[in-house]
């Protein structure tokens, strides 16, 4: 069994969640709002300190910014609370809080200090927030999502007794009606009773400027102050730690032969994983088992959902096959995106919007009207990736995307993959035959035929497991000499030698300077000309892969 290593430094090594940060006092909330407006397509988060206007108690919380509003009188930030950071917690905080400036009385929180953070990725959240007075706009937006299962949380006051109320349910109706000043919007929300004690009730959510009085049962009418809408309620994933996780994953064929055995690894959200290994080592089998395409034993989860729940888990991953014929070649790239994306129950207008933005990001928007067959191999590959990303998956799985591409196109593709990873925050799993490509990823999984997973970890951690923590003596010969490797392996203290053309890397546990001297001496004795000697050459993933597949080193599996 390969030894496991403890990564205490793991938290420190993790990528920062945000790329820029700004600090504002409560009095400067207008500037904070401007800062957010300038970065409105980004995933913005904030840390708010202030006082709850209802109780006057201090509050500290972290959350994602849903909406900012800067009017003549109002300056407001709506925040979806992710973490309550109060030392003394008195009562639960609302899931959505409105933050106003210092001394604000109209909002939930009067902020004394706001830290806004721009996360690296683009804001891909589908959830929507409306003030109670904006229900008319909510109705308009909901009309575009007709037929979808839309979840809704409303905070407001009951029309009968004006007491605060919060309801959570699914939207069953949305309408606008004429009113003395402006048309008013109203939502009908079906709320399941808690504990199934009574039948579900339908509440009418009305705008606060309702002057005529409720036309509905006042007990079931909510005068809204905050409305939080989640359009694709069914697509919500449970809470999860690792976006992709495999535990003791084993796949057997009918004859009882195990294709993979006890494969365990996991990646966090936003990480990139390269799966490398020999042909027939079980790389594709692992991916097929992970997406629930073939029967397996053990645990395999994507976004916290068991892969055996095939219908549900498919919303959370995108698969990009190796074969480019897996898309309709007579269709244009956008038509392909729509054809596949619609099967996820995403409205066409949204697919067009998202598809165009993907094609623009991939530099093929101008080819939008050409049929896919008219595009070059590299462009077709990008279309294939765009199709896999149409439904905004959490994980993108790719089967040998760079095979058949020239080195230039290969590098370009990796540039796009890195961009996807950063811009969309999508975790990426890439099966590849090229160990060098593993350097682009955060994690690497190495598979060997008959042994399944033999190594898993960050490229740096894996390379550190080589002798001298991945450093070697680098020797460049004057000419390629096949005997050189054998000769150097006979030198005292040398563990193994890897040769690539004229370059030889000599690995040893002893001081590299001494080994270098011994090697040069031995080569001279054998009349082999040496051009360059470097006492500290860094091993790359190709060296690691060769060493592990030849059994020269033992793999580690990072927990």
């Amino acid at each position: 069994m390969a030894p496991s290593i403890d990564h205490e430094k793991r938290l420190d090594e993790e990528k920062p969640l945000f790329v820029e940060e700004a600090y504002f006092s409560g009095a400067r909330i207008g500037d904070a709002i401007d800062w957010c407006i300038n970065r409105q397509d980004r995933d913005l988060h904030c840390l708010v300190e202030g006082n709850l206007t209802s109780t006057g108690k201090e509050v500290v919380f972290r959350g994602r910014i849903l909406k900012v509003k800067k009017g003549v009188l109002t300056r407001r930030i709506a925040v979806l609370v992710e973490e309550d950071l109060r030392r003394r917690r008195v009562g639960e905080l609302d899931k959505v809080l409105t933050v106003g400036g210092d001394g604000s009385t109209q909002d939930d929180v009067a902020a004394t200090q706001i830290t806004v953070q721009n996360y690296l990725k683009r804001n891909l959240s589908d959830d929507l927030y409306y003030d109670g007075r904006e229900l008319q706009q909510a109705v308009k937006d909901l009309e575009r999502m007709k037929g979808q299962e839309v979840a809704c949380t409303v905070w407001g006051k009951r029309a009968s007794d004006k007491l605060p109320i919060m309801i959570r349910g699914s939207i069953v109706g949305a309408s606008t009606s004429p009113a003395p000043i402006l048309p008013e919007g109203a939502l009908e929300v079906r709320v399941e009773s808690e504990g199934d004690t009574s039948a579900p009730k339908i509440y009418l959510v009305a705008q606060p400027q309702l002057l005529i009085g409720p036309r509905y049962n006042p007990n079931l009418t909510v005068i809204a102050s905050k409305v939080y809408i989640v359009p694709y309620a069914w697509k919500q994933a449970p809470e999860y730690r690792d976006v992709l996780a495999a535990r003791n994953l084993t796949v057997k064929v009918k004859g009882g032969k195990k294709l993979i055995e006890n494969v365990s690894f996991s990646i966090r959200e936003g990480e990139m994983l390269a799966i490398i290994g020999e042909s027939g080592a079980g790389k594709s089998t692992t991916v097929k088992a992970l997406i629930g395409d073939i029967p397996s034993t053990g645990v395999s989860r994507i976004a916290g959902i068991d892969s055996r729940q095939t219908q549900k888990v498919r919303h959370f991953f995108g698969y990009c096959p190796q074969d480019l014929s897996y898309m309709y070649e007579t269709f244009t790239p956008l038509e392909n995106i729509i054809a596949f994306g619609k099967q996820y129950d995403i409205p066409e207008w949204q697919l067009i919007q998202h598809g165009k933005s993907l094609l623009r990001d991939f530099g093929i928007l101008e080819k939008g009207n050409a049929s896919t067959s008219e595009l070059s191999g590299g462009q077709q590959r990008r279309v294939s990736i765009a199709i896999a990303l149409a439904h905004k998956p959490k994980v993108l799985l790719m089967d040998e995307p760079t095979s058949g591409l020239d080195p230039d196109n290969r590098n370009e593709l990796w540039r796009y993959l890195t961009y996807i990873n950063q811009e969309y925050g999508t975790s990426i799993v890439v099966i590849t035959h090229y160990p060098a490509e593993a350097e682009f990823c955060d994690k690497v999984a190495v598979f060997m035929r008959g042994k399944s997973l033999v190594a898993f970890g960050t490229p740096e951690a894996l390379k550190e497991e080589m002798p001298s923590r991945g450093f070697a003596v680098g020797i460049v010969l004057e000419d390629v000499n096949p005997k050189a490797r054998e000769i150097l392996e006979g030198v005292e203290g040398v563990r193994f030698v890897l040769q690539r053309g004229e370059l030889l890397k000599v690995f040893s546990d002893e001081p590299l300077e001494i080994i270098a001297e011994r090697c040069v001496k031995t080569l001279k004795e054998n009349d082999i000309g040496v051009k360059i000697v470097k006492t500290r050459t860094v091993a790359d993933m190709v060296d690691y892969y060769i060493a592990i597949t030849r059994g020269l080193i033992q793999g580690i599996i990072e927990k």
Partner: protein
Amino acid sequence: MAEVLTKPSRRIRNMVAKELRLIVKDKVALILIFLLPAALIGMLWWVTDMSEQGSLGFGSSPGGGGAGDNETVSMGSSITIGLVDLDTTRTYSGEDLSENFTKYLEQSADVVFYNSTDDAFRDLYEGLIEGYVVIPDGFEANLTINEPTYVEVHIDGTDFLTEASVQGVIQAATIMFRSSKMWIRSEVFPGMVIEFAPEGGYLESVFGGFIVIFSSYLGIAMTSAQSIVGDAPLRRMLLTPTNRLEVIVAKVLGYVIIGFFQSLLLITLWVLAFDLNLNTSFLSLVVIMSLISLTGSTTGILISAISSTRLQANQMFLFILFGTLILSGFFIDVGVLDEILPMNQGLKLLTNTAFKGLSLIQVIDRVLKLVGFSVAAILAATFIFSKKPTLG
């Protein structure tokens, strides 16, 4: 939180739209789909124009129907023929000539005697007899004065197979009758009256009907036989929330729509080109052609689900093509299979409605058979398809 609530109907609708869009995008395929019916009917028109049988009308001139001349060898088979003897003349001193003719007829077939032509016609309609002979008044009188005479032979125009046998039996009986009465100098002509056929040419309607059904059924079966095995992106589609039953249903519906328009064009050209006046409503024709497209489509999808490669699908389709052709009941009697095979049901549906004038309710058993076959084929295709791995 709510479980996955996406509607299968929406996914099926999207997939059908995608299938149709693929066809629309493929201009050559689109032209072929509509060119094929025109070419078929054009060919039939040309062939019948060349053929002497092409102008053969119904219930017209006696002496036609030469197709059955060589069929007398099948006289041993149990053919039931009705006989209506209207001859009242008694001019010959010997035996009654019409009764004597009847006896010769009885040697070759089972003869059922009728007093009126209406009863015989009804039994022919219900399939109790394969044809009936009417001996006209004056049969004996004409023969005794050496004037030519004739017998009316009424046959079922929708039953291509027995037509020839009936004609053979009548021919045989006439020859034997004639040779036993060598003193008669004139001839006895069997006059053909083809019943249950629309107004128009004989070959055009009977053979044209066969062509319409045959090409509608197999045309769409051939197209859909490639629909799964030849659709590589489908594998990727199966990694979306779409399940295999939805794929099969969507494919079937897509091809039914294409097949429906194709077969409707075919039948329209058939009717217009030969100026036929079918004995059924346009709505019935639409229903029948939809059913034929449905069965054709499901047959093709089943082939596609079973086969793993395009070559397998092609070979399997050829097997089905020849099997369907041979067992269509149009050329040879296929016994009980005639009541089972889907194309035979389609053919019978068309002849029973468009030729005989029956309503769809009266032929509901055949409609149900076609629907049942389609459902069974869809389920079988889904079951087989579900056993195949998505990504190979």
